């Protein structure tokens, strides 16, 4: 903790709150590298030979599984945390490249339903705006037990963002500092979760898959319990996962890195081959995607990276008045999502600021970004000799640090050594 951090606490008399994900240095996918093909392996031609990216989620129980063209999905972010324009842009982008978006704490807006070809509807502890009609309009259901930025904590939305529409959707008084529940109101523990999952299936006629999302802490046991409870898909969000607003101490000091979580989750699902794994938290590049898939994920989710593609922290724009300086923040290091004073119109409910984001142009940037990630992923897969990105495997990876080797359980580069083995 820096002296500035101490001074901030001395000024506030409480914990600082901010947006974004963990800032401090922790082991990441960057600490791994691919052993691409050479004499002992046979590479595929990068430009000409096909490499499949199609991803099917939830074929275990659902009549209509989620079928995605790419293994990269958009993570749950609420209308409230994000502007309606941002939600629409994410929906348009995802639809354009054939992937899914996800609602958030606060329910489903008609705009995001209309702009998203495949929309995952979250069932969160708060149940803000949770409506059986929207449930039936969704393409998948995601029961959220926690998120990587704050596993064990509930959602948060500061009063500046609880405008009339958001407040009405959440049945809350306008302008209050919303602190969502951290536990579901009507079940506790995995035996109850099993019944809850069945209830949601009954209410939707067993049509759509049920995902269970957890923040990465005791990953092996939590993922196993979710699978036993009947989840079609388990979503594991590592400690780098972002948020619209949470206590800084929560963001930086809870959960385990995505790198460590993915292998534990994959091991937990070894006995449940039909249960799919989505991993999120700090995914930035096609290399991150490919490494997550190689370690056992079936797909990844991106949140902060999609917002950055949309224009978050963008230094190019010149908005004149009420730009970064006026709003008390700095491009490149802005985590002021919680204040509602988002200079680029993404994490705001101010009509004036939100109008700065053009959903159509923003969607193009996000779609381009998703295409670039997919190209990078398939390029690495082909170089490893794989005709399907889902054929990537741990054997394709080595670690550059002892820590990463221990967490991902792949050998330290240039050795056969996996710590603990």
């Amino acid at each position, binding site marked *: 903790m820096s002296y500035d951090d101490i001074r901030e606490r001395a000024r506030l008399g*409480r914990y600082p*709150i901010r947006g974004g994900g963990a800032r401090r240095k922790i082991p990441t996918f960057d600490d791994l590298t691919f052993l691409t093909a050479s004499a002992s392996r046979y590479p595929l031609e990068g430009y000409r030979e096909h490499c499949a990216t199609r991803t099917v989620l939830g074929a275990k129980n659902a009549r209509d599984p989620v079928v995605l063209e790419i293994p990269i999905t958009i993570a749950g972010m609420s209308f409230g945390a994000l502007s309606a324009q941002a939600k629409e842009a994410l929906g348009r982008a995802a639809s354009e490249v054939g992937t899914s978006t996800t609602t958030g704490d606060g329910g489903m807006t008609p705009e995001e339903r209309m702009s998203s070809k495949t929309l995952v509807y979250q069932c969160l502890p*708060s*149940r803000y705006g*949770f*409506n*059986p*009609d929207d*449930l*039936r309009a969704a393409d998948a259901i995601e029961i959220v037990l926690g998120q990587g930025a704050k596993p064990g904590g509930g959602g948060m939305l*500061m*009063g*500046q963002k609880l405008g009339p529409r958001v407040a009405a959707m*959440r*049945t*809350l*008084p306008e302008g*209050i*500092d919303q*602190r969502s*529940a951290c536990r579901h*109101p*009507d*079940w506790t523990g995995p035996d*109850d979760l099993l*019944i*809850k999952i*069945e*209830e*949601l299936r*009954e*209410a*939707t*006629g*067993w049509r759509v898959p049920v995902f269970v999302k957890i923040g990465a802490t005791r990953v092996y046991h939590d993922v196993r319990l979710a699978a036993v409870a009947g989840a079609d898909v388990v979503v594991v969000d590592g400690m780098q996962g972002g948020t619209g*607003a949470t206590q800084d101490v929560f963001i930086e000091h809870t959960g385990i890195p995505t790198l460590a979580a993915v292998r534990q989750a994959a091991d937990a699902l070894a006995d449940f081959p039909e249960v799919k794994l989505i991993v999120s938290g700090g995914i930035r590049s096609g290399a991150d995607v490919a490494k997550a898939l190689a370690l056992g994920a079936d797909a990844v989710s991106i949140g902060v990276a999609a917002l950055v593609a949309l224009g978050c922290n963008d230094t190019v724009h010149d908005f004149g008045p009420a730009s970064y300086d006026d709003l008390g923040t700095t491009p490149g290091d802005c985590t002021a999502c*919680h*204040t509602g004073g988002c200079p680029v119109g993404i994490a705001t409910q101010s009509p004036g600021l939100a109008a700065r984001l053009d959903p159509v142009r923003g969607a193009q940037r996000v779609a381009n970004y998703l295409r670039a990630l997919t190209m990078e992923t398939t390029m690495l897969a082909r170089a490893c000799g794989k005709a399907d990105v889902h054929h990537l495997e741990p054997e394709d990876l080595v670690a550059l640090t002892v820590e990463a080797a221990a967490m991902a359980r792949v050998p330290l580069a240039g050795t056969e050594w996996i710590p603990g083995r």
Partner: protein
Amino acid sequence: MDIDLSTTDVRTTNAALRALPAGTTARLVNPAGKHNLAVGLTEPITVEIDGTAGYYAGGLGKNATVLVRGTAGWGAGENLMSGLVQVDGDASQSLAASAHGGTIVVRGDASLRAGISLKGATVLVGGDVGDHCGFMAQAGTILIGGDAGRGLGDSLYEAVIYVAGKIKDLGADARIEDLTAEDVELIADLAKRHGFDHIDPENVKRVASAKQLYHWGSP
């Protein structure tokens, strides 16, 4: 129409209920505590559950009337949007959790967290409620004909709880307020409509939020 749950599974039963036209009545016999009975209903039909229901009886529904002729497990009437869920016996935990609309009536007692996260529905319990009734309830009305346990109304928002009996203690930010003429009229109407003759509308405590947890101050 009768559906015998000793020979018909829950999935088939719920599918049959969803196919019923408005105005029809169905009776579920031999429920034996099965979970998720009559969930996700959308049409104005009546479903009588002839015995004990498990978790989430009548949950996630709208427009329908679900009558449990016995006791109910966790989350009876959870996330109800409209219509009626009535339990003749006792109800277990998290009665009417997050219910947005409609009415949930329990003639006996309700266990922990009745009306938790309530979002606009009306909840009536003829007997006692356990601890943490109305936890984080956002909107709606809870009327308790008997006594309330510990932590009543903890972290309430705009929901109001009326208690005819004793209150063990109040939760954080909950306070007892003066009963208004409108409160008395509302309680009298609810008690009369649901046959809760033991409730004296003039002699009920009103519990609401002191609203001290609404703000942190500037971020």
